[in-house]
């Protein structure tokens, strides 16, 4: 009779073989992509980007990918702009979770700070009513979110793992509750009339020396048409991805990786772990603030209901689903997590169920994420095998 132990070994072996095969295939794919000459690769990338920009205007008969082609569906370019904003959020969150390995469940707090900053300083209806143009609000939003990142990070980054997750979860809720209760954020009623990116109504007297007067509205960005917002988000995504990648391939990215793998050994090897963790937090927060600013102007109206706990969890789900650490994987995960519910809208009340099932199926089949960074996948796999062997050995 085969013992349970032997069967365990057989299963563990099978899993290992299947995984090895899959990795080989993936590596082959990666190798094939790398072997294509660089100009061709660049051209292919460029074609992909052009396709993304053209996406709101494309419809393919027979393949109903547009959300406005299905019953109960909503505007495709509106959905696209939402997804693009969330992709930006995910790219920022990936710096914190995927690269530095800090589980941040309250990332939505930074997103909210960014959105509220733009609304408070830009909207004529806020009680501050400075009515700054959007372009001036954005740097203020980024600066304020970075500061809030440092304020949150300084005391909490001494914690590790699950403890950090709990504290950041609290942070996200604190920001939301503050937004509900402060007068300047106007609670549930929120702040309407957030300025569009292409309008400015400024009449400043600088120290009585000279006068700056702008009064224009190009009317490119309007509530009627979400496409310009989508395009703007795409441009920002590309810029941010390039910036994050250049950081990843430097001393900074190396330090993050070292901290993620063995923080004690890293600091004994001279890595200033606290500083680099704080930088990861600040950079992630800045990107979160930027996407919040984008959201506020696209949505025109900001209130505390936009920043609930569920959305925060969905951001982390998107990253885990796509594959932590790999920027393109994270983008893919976000697109799936925020596109599927819209695509399933025709199921009306059952769509959440279908969406939840889809997530479970994907995570069972690919626990490391759809398109993980190679390192992250191996880290996860090592731990799984260790657990399996421990179980088999017991």
């Amino acid at each position, binding site marked *: 009779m085969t013992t349970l132990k032997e069967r365990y070994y057989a299963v563990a072996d099978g899993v290992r073989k299947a995984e090895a095969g899959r990795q080989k295939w993936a590596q082959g794919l990666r190798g094939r992509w790398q072997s294509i000459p660089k100009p061709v690769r660049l051209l292919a990338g460029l074609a992909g980007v052009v396709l993304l920009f053209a996406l709101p205007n494309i419809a393919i008969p027979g393949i109903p990918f547009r959300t406005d082609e299905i019953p109960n569906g909503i505007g495709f370019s509106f959905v696209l702009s939402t997804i693009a904003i969330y992709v930006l959020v995910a790219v920022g969150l990936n710096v914190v979770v995927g690269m530095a390995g800090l589980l941040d469940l309250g990332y939505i707090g930074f997103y909210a700070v960014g959105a509220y900053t733009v609304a408070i300083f830009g909207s004529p209806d806020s009680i501050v009513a400075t009515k700054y143009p959007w372009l001036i609000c954005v740097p203020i939003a980024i600066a304020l979110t970075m500061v809030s990142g440092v304020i949150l990070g300084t005391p909490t980054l001494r914690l590790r793992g699950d403890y950090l997750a709990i504290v950041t979860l609290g942070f996200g809720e604190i920001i939301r509750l503050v937004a509900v209760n402060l007068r300047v954020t106007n609670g549930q009623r929120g702040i309407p009339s957030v300025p569009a990116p292409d309008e400015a109504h400024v009449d400043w007297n600088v120290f009585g020396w000279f006068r700056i007067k702008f009064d224009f509205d190009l009317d490119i960005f309007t509530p009627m048409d979400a496409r310009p917002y989508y395009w703007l988000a795409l441009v920002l995504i590309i810029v941010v991805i390039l910036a994050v990648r250049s*950081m990843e391939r430097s001393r900074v990215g190396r330090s993050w990786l*070292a901290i993620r793998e063995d923080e*004690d*050994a*890293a600091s*004994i*090897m001279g890595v200033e772990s606290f500083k680099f963790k704080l930088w990861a937090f600040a950079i992630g927060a800045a990107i979160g603030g930027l996407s919040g600013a984008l959201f506020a102007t696209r949505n025109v109206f900001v209130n505390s209901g936009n920043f609930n706990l569920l959305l925060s969890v969905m951001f982390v789900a998107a990253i885990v689903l796509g594959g932590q650490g790999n920027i393109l994987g994270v983008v893919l995960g976000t697109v799936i997590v925020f596109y599927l519910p819209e695509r399933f809208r025709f199921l009306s009340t059952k769509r959440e169920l279908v969406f939840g099932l889809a997530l479970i199926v994907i995570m069972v089949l690919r626990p490391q994420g759809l398109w993980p960074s190679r390192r992250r996948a*191996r*880290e996860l796999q090592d731990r799984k095998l260790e657990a399996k062997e421990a179980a088999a050995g017991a």
Partner: protein
Amino acid sequence: MPDDETTPTSEDTPTSEETPTAKETAAAEEIAAEERGGDSPAEFLAETAPETVAPPGAPLLSVRDVTLRFGGVVALDGVDFEVRTGEILALIGPNGAGKTTCFNVMTGVYKPTSGRVEFDGERLSGRKPHIITRMGIARTFQNIRLFPEMTAEENIMVGADAHHKTSVIGALLHLPRHGREERDGRRTAAELLEFVGLEGRGGELARNLPYGDQRRLEIARALATRPKLLCLDEPAAGFNPAEKERLQQLIRDIRDLGHTVLLIEHDMRLVMGVADRIVVLEFGQKIAEGPPAEIREDPRVIAAYLGVPEDAA
């Protein structure tokens, strides 16, 4: 490296290295080093070896009457010795003698209850680990602690980064210093890989290397931080005799490059073969100190290791 050579007395204070003169000299030296290009690894490593402030033989790290208590347990009791510049000092003792505790006090992990540890004339305790690394102490671990998912080259580059100054902004905008330091790190990695006998394996993941190579890689990573004092915590654990032989030679080579070596080891043959001086601990107290030949004959050491014969007691 270049920075250190320009400001040998105050190399721990980053501000002094930010002065334009220091930067210019560093850049000039960098160019000069690049022109030399074809140096043999030994020459290159000798150039990058630490600027030893103290002359050979002067105390580099002194343990002054250190006592360490954990509650009622006295882990170290008035231990007093020093590591001299340019020597290989071995710290030995039976299991539980306090070797690792002593090691942790010396590397600033524990703060002594009384007494003090001075490195290069400065107090160690209370300083952050990365500062201690920059002051010039590097270590390896009893149980290997490489970054397993990084390649061998990247592991060494993390060590080399200890003296690099590329900021987040610099990395973001690819400022010149970023490129210079990346090149420097890669070159250090290549030279050190060759030095420890891992040439051509820089692209392999640390976790895929055989056990012995992992130990050597850990030494290379520690050397990349350009330590004045390299602390090896049981580097021969799990080695076969041939590997021990190679390790012995490697330790001597490291000393010849200008690093002082502190060695904690169980293997008596290795210790006797390589150490210039030996300090013996037992029950948290120093029971002997001297050259290997003397230690071998010391009755207290023999007693500690072999037990006291009945009739002698």
